[in-house]
């Protein structure tokens, strides 16, 4: 009897772990089947090479490039903010700061990642954009710049915390050897510690990029809804995620071609983040340096 109970419990536990597998399967199946339906009506070549995205207009064009461009533009701005800041903070906390200071600052910075993203959207639209407009007079009310900058601040803790963990995992003996050779803290940090922790730092950056690509509410509120093939951040643009929100909020009839665009946009987004996640996972497994 006891044995049977043990077996039953184990089976239940396995079943629960399988829920995660079914989730992935579900995502892939839903996106794939709906996209297949979409690509029966729209040429896949047009989709990936077209430079106009107007599925909701009378004259429909289905080129995803403007959405991809908008997504990459905000992501690049966000990483340009978060990478230097996050890495510098990680090095400072690990190499310079008093451990008590680190113990206080690290969780405080992580609050940045806990704030709901719609709040950042509010902040970008009602505070950062007007502030920037006083420096850049022809900045559009909705723009990639302000959304990207605020998103960059949001993902600082992704880079700073994970990189700090990676730096902390480097054995003390390496740092002491560098000090023993007469290095300053700066030299120790950039010539010994950062290279030794490089795989962990790269993983943190990739995860941050993936997070920025999938971020929705900041760009939906502050970056606009105009698919535009531009790298100029002062204009209103549209990201893949914003487009999905736009269709979901609108009154587009279900089962229409217009509606099925959210699946083709969704699969594009999914492929981007899937590749990034797997690259980071691979690096983590493969290049993690083992120290005795």
């Amino acid at each position, binding site marked *: 009897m006891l044995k049977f109970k*043990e077996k039953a*419990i*184990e089976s239940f*536990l396995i079943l*629960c*772990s399988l*829920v*995660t*597998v079914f*989730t*992935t399967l579900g*995502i892939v199946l*839903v996106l794939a089947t709906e996209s297949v339906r979409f690509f029966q009506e729209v040429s896949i070549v047009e989709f990936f090479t077209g430079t106009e995205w107007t599925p909701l207009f009378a004259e429909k064009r289905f080129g995803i490039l403007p959405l991809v461009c908008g997504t990459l533009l905000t992501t690049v701005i966000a990483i340009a903010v978060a990478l230097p*800041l996050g890495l*510098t*903070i990680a*090095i*400072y*906390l690990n190499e310079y*700061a008093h451990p008590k200071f680190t113990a206080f*600052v690290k969780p405080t*910075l992580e*609050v*940045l990642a*806990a*704030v*709901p*993203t*719609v*709040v950042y*959207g*509010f*902040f970008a639209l*009602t*505070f950062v954009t007007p502030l920037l407009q006083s420096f850049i007079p022809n900045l559009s009310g909705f723009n990639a710049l302000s959304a990207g900058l605020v998103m960059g*601040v949001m993902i600082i803790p992704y880079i*700073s915390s994970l990189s700090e963990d990676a730096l902390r995992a480097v054995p003390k003996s390496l740092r002491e050897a560098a000090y023993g050779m007469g290095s*300053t*803290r*700066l*030299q120790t*940090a950039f010539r010994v510690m950062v290279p030794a922790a490089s795989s962990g730092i790269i993983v943190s950056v990739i995860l941050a990029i*993936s997070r920025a*690509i*999938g*971020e*929705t*509410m900041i760009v939906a*509120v502050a970056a606009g809804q105009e698919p535009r093939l531009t790298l100029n951040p002062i204009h209103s643009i549209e990201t893949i*995620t914003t487009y*999905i*929100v736009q269709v*979901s909020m609108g009154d587009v009839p279900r089962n229409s071609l217009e509606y099925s665009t959210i699946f083709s946009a*969704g699969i594009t*987004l*999914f492929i981007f*983040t899937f590749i*990034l*996640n797997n690259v980071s*996972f691979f690096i983590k497994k493969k290049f993690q340096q083992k120290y005795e």
Partner: protein
Amino acid sequence: MNSSQINKIKNLGFKSFAIVCTFLGLVVLAVLLYVVFSQGLSRIDWDFITSLPSRRASSAGIYTALFGMVWILVLTVIIAFPIGMAAGIYLQEYGKKNWFTNFIEVNIANLAGVPSIIYGILGLELFGRVLGLGNSILTGALTLSLLILPIIIVSTREAIKAVPKSLREASYGLGATKWQTISNVVLPSAFGGIMTGLILAISRAIGETAPLIVIGALVYVPFVPEGPMDEFTVLTIQIFNWVTRPQAGFVTNAAAAIIILLMFTFMMNGIAVLIRSRYNKKTKF
């Protein structure tokens, strides 16, 4: 000036730059809070919390959005917590080092990185259309459950991993079975860590907007939901709607609703920190 002095100056320069960077993040957080509170605090009163949504900014409230949020959260916890904990227990205690466990691990790491809006698309099709649950509270809760499962699983595993082997062996030595050991020894010791993970997952669910928009959660809900099959809205969607309206009064409303939302988020994170520190003090292995 010799090279040693130059290096010292460089070192000092970087240190100052790093201090500025560290405080910059904190300053932005402070400015954000100041902007929100200075705009919204005066708008919060009992009427704002107990009023139904309205076309006029001055009489609109967050009553239905609050109730929708509580409904969603309670259901999400009921669905996600047992499944997440069970999966975490399986992977940490039962899973052998083989391709199957490895596959599930890679899979969970992947799921944790899937954008939340993609979960919305899954929920829309799977729960909304295939299971026919429409844009109900249940669809929302199921969708968010899948979204926070990886968080609960990973934190459960971490908590269980921290329980020392000697405790398990003592239990086995007394003749306990595997499950008896897990339920009577391992889980009670790991309770604090598991709870911390659950609360952080709830905090994440509170802040989610995009997946609920995609499954078709409404913006204007003039009634309080009474069952899991009712249509709903949540606080974040209400905020999104108000932010995107051009009239000035709605921006004030948005700021006020954000204060309420942040109270929930910070409260959850505070509780998590508290449990973690109390629990760490109480149990020393």
